[in-house]
């Protein structure tokens, strides 16, 4: 497509192409947009320290005892922001799963991957990739949370059947 576009640009003076199927004339944008977000993790730093040590650390409200995962700065129930960081047990039960065959381009380095949700024994649910053959597991399967290094080079948790 880009070869033809270049040719048309030179010959006709415009970045135009007829649509492949219908022949209807299209202007092919010469501006390209790339987006990379910058997201604050300033209030959940201990979570990442935990992952570095292979642990799942999250926030618990000091007043009402509510356990939050993913970790968060504020307790909306008490309208308080005094949280303690606690380690949660890294075991639970699989509730559902899917295998992502058609991947977003930004996940193009990966083969189809399994995304699963498990309910941890301590209460919170967790969504993560599931290691291993998805055909060998069903909801109800016991799983453990493990931290591993991703292809992108950073540490993240995943679910592993026990």
């Amino acid at each position: 497509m880009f070869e033809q576009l270049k040719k048309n640009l030179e010959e006709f003076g415009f970045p135009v192409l007829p649509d492949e199927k219908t022949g209807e004339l299209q202007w092919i944008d010469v501006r390209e947009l790339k987006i990379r977000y910058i997201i604050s993790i300033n209030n959940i730093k201990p979570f990442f320290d935990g992952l570095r040590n292979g642990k799942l650390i999250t926030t618990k409200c000091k007043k009402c005892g509510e356990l939050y995962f993913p970790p968060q700065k504020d307790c909306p129930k008490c309208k308080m922001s005094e949280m303690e960081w606690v380690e949660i047990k890294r075991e639970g039960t699989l509730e559902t799963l899917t295998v992502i065959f058609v991947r977003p381009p930004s996940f193009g380095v990966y083969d189809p991957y399994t995304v699963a949700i498990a309910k941890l024994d301590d209460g919170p649910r967790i969504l993560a990739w599931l290691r291993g053959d998805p055909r060998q597991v069903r909801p109800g399967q016991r799983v453990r949370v493990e931290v591993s290094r991703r292809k992108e080079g950073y540490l993240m948790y995943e679910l592993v059947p026990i």
Partner: protein
Amino acid sequence: MSENVAVVGVGHSKFGTRKDVNMAELAWESIKPALETSGIEQKDIDFFVVGYAGLGGSEAAMPSVIAEYAELSPKGSMRVEAACATGNAAIRVGYTAIKAGIADLVLVVGIEKMQESPNPTVIELIGRFGSYFWEFENFGLTFPGYYALHGTAYMMKYGATEEDFARVAVKNHYYGAKNPYAQFQKEITIETVLKSPYIAWPFKLFDCSPITDGSAAVVLASEEKVKELGIDERIWILGQGTGTGTANLSKRESFTSLASARYAAEIAYKMAKIDMDDPTKYLDGANVHDCFTAPEIIAYEDLRFCKPGEGYKMIREEQTYIGGKIPVNVDGGLKAKGHPIGATGVSQAVEAYKQLLQKAEPGRQADIKKGRWLAHNIGGTGHFAYVTIYGLEKR
């Protein structure tokens, strides 16, 4: 203020791959018939609402693009976004404006031109309708993936099969084939679905709604305006409920139902004075949000057309075809009609108007005996839920 609000005019573009028009031209395709069927002019409009999720299309200032092209300037406007429920959310804004008494005639336009961006870009963007960091950034969830997590949970809990899901696609293509505005006007078989490649297990290509260009428009009017203009062809909004779900799916209790949709349905039924233990007794049909096949089945249950766990039996027994317990998506649904995100909820209102006034195309007109039609429009995976009930007689 106006106790009752009516839909007095409708317009619908052809849905599909619309390389023949730009965004303003696509919007005009539905605005023009909406004005014509309501018998009003642009100058009569007090306010207009544009449902536009901005997913794939080049234009950012869509209400202004429309104001310029459709001669609506300097009238006030608002762009509304609620992911795939954007269309019904736009209707919500128009409805509440009229109910509050600050407008008498409101034009609601839903539009999306998703094919202005390459397919992979749309897949990338649409996978972000949840929790960006905890679901997309780290685990690459896609939009089919979000609903597939529900499809799996549903199959495992109730014993439904991939074949049951396929039956929804077969039904919706059957009716899409009879809808000249649909993206896919071709019937398919269960085998077509089962043999198509996996997108997000258990969903295959034919379990998924397509990436679509399209627009739809309705004119809403106060009770006083309907009387003043002597408009006979109209339907009334009898009830509307909205609900919101958590961003993270991991914060949900169930994956076989959408709590926000159940909540929205209860509010809408109460407002429309419909017995929520047996709503099909009051409804001639419904449009539900079948962005994938399994969510149509889950919608039957969330809307109480059947008991939890029995939705798949309704499609197995063809209870949602015309002639069954309640016809559902007899315009082809999102699955075959197409799903231009911002336009879908408005398109459902257009369908309610056509069905209740018996203007649907041959072969897809439901029997209108009770005079009520339901529209169920979901954004994200139950992140936003809108249920609207339309009727021939006002409340």
